[in-house]
């Protein structure tokens, strides 16, 4: 198992590799990652990437809620706490997202949201489940 851990460190630096099944240690579900290694992504490859529109919309709502100036860099990886949001802000952001996307977020799921990417993933999942 040590060799797998070792190769996962390598795949971070060079995601365009054949061995990318270990590129994400924390995601047990593998959905169609056989074609992922063909894309030369500059940052680490994400197995269940949220849609770009969703991430953009989440960023927009976050910026509005936290009253951040327009030029602030908010990307998928931004953590809410880094952007200056406390847990109350996070609750408000999640409510805003619920309202905009017309979904209902579970109590337990809402507590685990820490980054913009998490929120976008959850939204996509709920929207897909609803459709």
């Amino acid at each position, binding site marked *: 198992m040590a060799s797998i851990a070792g190769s996962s460190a390598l795949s971070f630096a060079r995601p365009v590799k054949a061995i990318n099944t270990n590129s994400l240690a924390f995601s047990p579900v593998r959905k169609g990652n056989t074609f992922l290694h063909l894309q030369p992504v500059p940052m680490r490859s994400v197995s269940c990437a949220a849609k770009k529109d969703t991430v953009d919309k989440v960023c927009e709502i976050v910026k509005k809620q936290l009253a951040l100036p327009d030029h602030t860099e908010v990307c998928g990886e931004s953590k809410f706490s880094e952007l200056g949001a*406390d*847990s*109350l802000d996070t*609750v*408000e952001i*999640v*409510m805003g997202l619920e*309202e905009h996307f017309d979904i209902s977020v579970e*109590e337990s799921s*809402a*507590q685990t949201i820490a980054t913009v990417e998490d929120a976008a993933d959850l939204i996509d999942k709920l929207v897909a489940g609803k459709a």
Partner: protein
Amino acid sequence: MAAAAAAPTRAEVLALFRSLLRTAKQFSDYNIREYTRRRGADAFRENRALADAQAAAAAFAEGKKHLEVAKRQALVYSLYAPKAKSVMELKVQ
């Protein structure tokens, strides 16, 4: 009087906040909806740094009371909802 009520946990407080916001969404009147959200957020933010366990428990109980009031009022207001929407809710043409 129950002595030394335990301070609410972080999760409980957030759950109360979430319930309050959800209840606020149910109001058909724009003004009341916005007020409930704003006042709720302000109150929670104001009390966020309460160190004293008893004060925190008191604030939590207060919050729960307000939640009950809001739920009842949401029901009552929905019975007499106005037909016209507030101008703030009209989509920008």
